[in-house]
């Protein structure tokens, strides 16, 4: 058979030997299969991707995402106003409407409007935090260092690991851990609304907890010092609702949730409108412009893009994979950017970029896989409904 160990990003050219993360031995002790991903040795699976996937959808999964970049942008001289202005020159977000402790999905854009990375930006009291993809973090840091003004400080919090706790039991699990707000006015973590964050203490150890994730489920992402992450992972995994989950299920979960993966569904060659990420260009920025690629992106927002990222539900059981071509009859209309078997739906699903004329819901398409034509239909994204937790009072 062909070598199945192709999970690592093919686009990634990593010359140096892979690095290890603080939980490396923790994963190996739990029989994880470790693969190289984004320059690090990472757990791809423990007991099996389908079991881990379904566990996350029904209980709580613990993911090590310490490969991701945790960046902090601040300005000693100009304060938050200067940091905000500097970031708004690089992102299409309206940071003036981002409240303390708030998080927002945004995009690092090149001058031509191409997507350099997708990220989460959060407002702290004295800085903005960016959480960026592991595979792109070094390029992001170089880009930010080049484009941020000299009075802006960029730091890489690589002394911090990042855990994600995802699933319907995540809040109950976290509330069992006796985590205290680190300052007055901060709600307990289980009272955070989706896309809110705050500083906490657990047994005297500082944690940055946000209600966010990459699975479509309710859940949290927890930034923790490297020296504390084993104790935290042990405490979480000791609870019966929690199992460790590998990158394999992380990918199938995010695909079902319709969330794009940078390097596959997004790249420098895609702009936000065809990617279906127009929501990341906030209202004030649409009227004012002033972000990279605005001259290209704003007309696309008004008139529509030539291609669209769509969800495809496939007939049969053979999955379509990244790179497969999409047809209407003999006419090539697009390309699959992510595809696989959906454990929750029990049939294959895919994301593809197709000509706008073929992007309407219900459109019947065909995908060429190894000379075989797979029938597919354009369906709404997400494939599996999101179950984010939103407090009525907080929003």
């Amino acid at each position: 058979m062909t070598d199945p160990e192709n999970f690592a990003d093919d686009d990634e050219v990593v010359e140096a030997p892979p690095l290890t993360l603080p939980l490396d031995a923790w994963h190996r002790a739990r029989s994880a299969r470790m693969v190289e991903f984004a320059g690090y040795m990472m757990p791809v699976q423990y007991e099996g991707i389908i079991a881990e996937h379904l566990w996350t959808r029904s209980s709580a999964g613990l993911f090590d995402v310490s490969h991701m970049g945790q960046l902090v942008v601040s300005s000693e001289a100009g304060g938050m106003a200067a940091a905000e202005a500097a970031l708004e020159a690089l992102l299409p977000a309206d940071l003036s409407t981002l409240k303390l402790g708030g998080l927002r999905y945004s995009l690092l854009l090149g001058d031509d409007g191409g997507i350099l990375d997708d990220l989460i930006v959060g407002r702290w009291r004295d800085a903005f935090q960016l959480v960026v993809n592991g595979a792109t973090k070094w390029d992001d840091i170089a880009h930010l260092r080049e484009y941020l003004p000299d009075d802006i400080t960029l730091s890489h919090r690589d002394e911090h690991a990042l855990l994600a706790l995802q699933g319907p039991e995540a809040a109950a699990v976290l509330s069992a851990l006796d985590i205290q707000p680190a300052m007055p006015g901060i709600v307990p973590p289980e009272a955070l609304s989706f896309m809110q964050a705050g500083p906490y203490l657990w047994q005297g150890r500082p944690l940055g907890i946000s209600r966010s994730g990459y699975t479509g489920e309710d859940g949290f992402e927890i930034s923790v010092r490297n020296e504390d992450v084993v104790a935290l992972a042990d405490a979480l995994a000791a609870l019966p609702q929690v199992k460790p989950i590998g990158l394999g299920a992380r990918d199938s979960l995010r695909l079902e949730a319709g969330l794009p993966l940078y390097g596959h569904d997004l790249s420098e060659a895609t702009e936000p409108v065809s990617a279906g990420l127009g929501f990341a260009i906030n209202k004030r920025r649409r009227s004012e412009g002033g972000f990279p690629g605005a001259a290209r992106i704003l007309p696309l927002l008004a008139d529509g893009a030539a291609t669209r990222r769509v969800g495809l539900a496939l007939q049969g059981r053979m999955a379509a994979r990244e790179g497969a071509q999409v047809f209407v009859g003999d006419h090539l209309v697009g390309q699959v950017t992510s595809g696989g078997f959906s454990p929750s739906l029990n049939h294959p699903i895919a994301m593809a970029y197709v000509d706008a004329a073929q992007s309407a819901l219900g459109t019947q398409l065909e995908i060429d896989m190894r000379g075989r034509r797979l029938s597919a239909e354009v369906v709404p994204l997400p494939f599996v409904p999101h179950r984010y937790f939103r407090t009525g009072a907080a929003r």
Partner: protein
Amino acid sequence: MSRYFTKEHEWIEVAGDIGTVGISDYAQGQLGDITFVELPAVGAEFKQGDAAAVVDSVKAASDIYVPVAGSITEINAALEDQPELVNTAPDAGGWLFRVKLADAGELSGLMDETAYKAYVAEL
């Protein structure tokens, strides 16, 4: 009956001039959860090393190569509804297809079980 293995982790068990082909336990473990198996048509002819089947897992699709040349005499129809048999019983109920050997001499280039175990231990 004797069982032979390829470096690509297929096994073939030969009885007379018919060989039953599957993938090894090591291979199914590497592939992970198998969701679909595409099998060849009965009667199809293959040369040694040709890709004759595709095993689709949650992670990736992998070609399965014919250990020796021959024509397909039977496929494991149970895999249509239960592809996971390749995970749960790779050495028995999860077999893929049977092939009528064109040249039994090709078997001499394959590993026996002892040699295969040593080979896997080195991976």
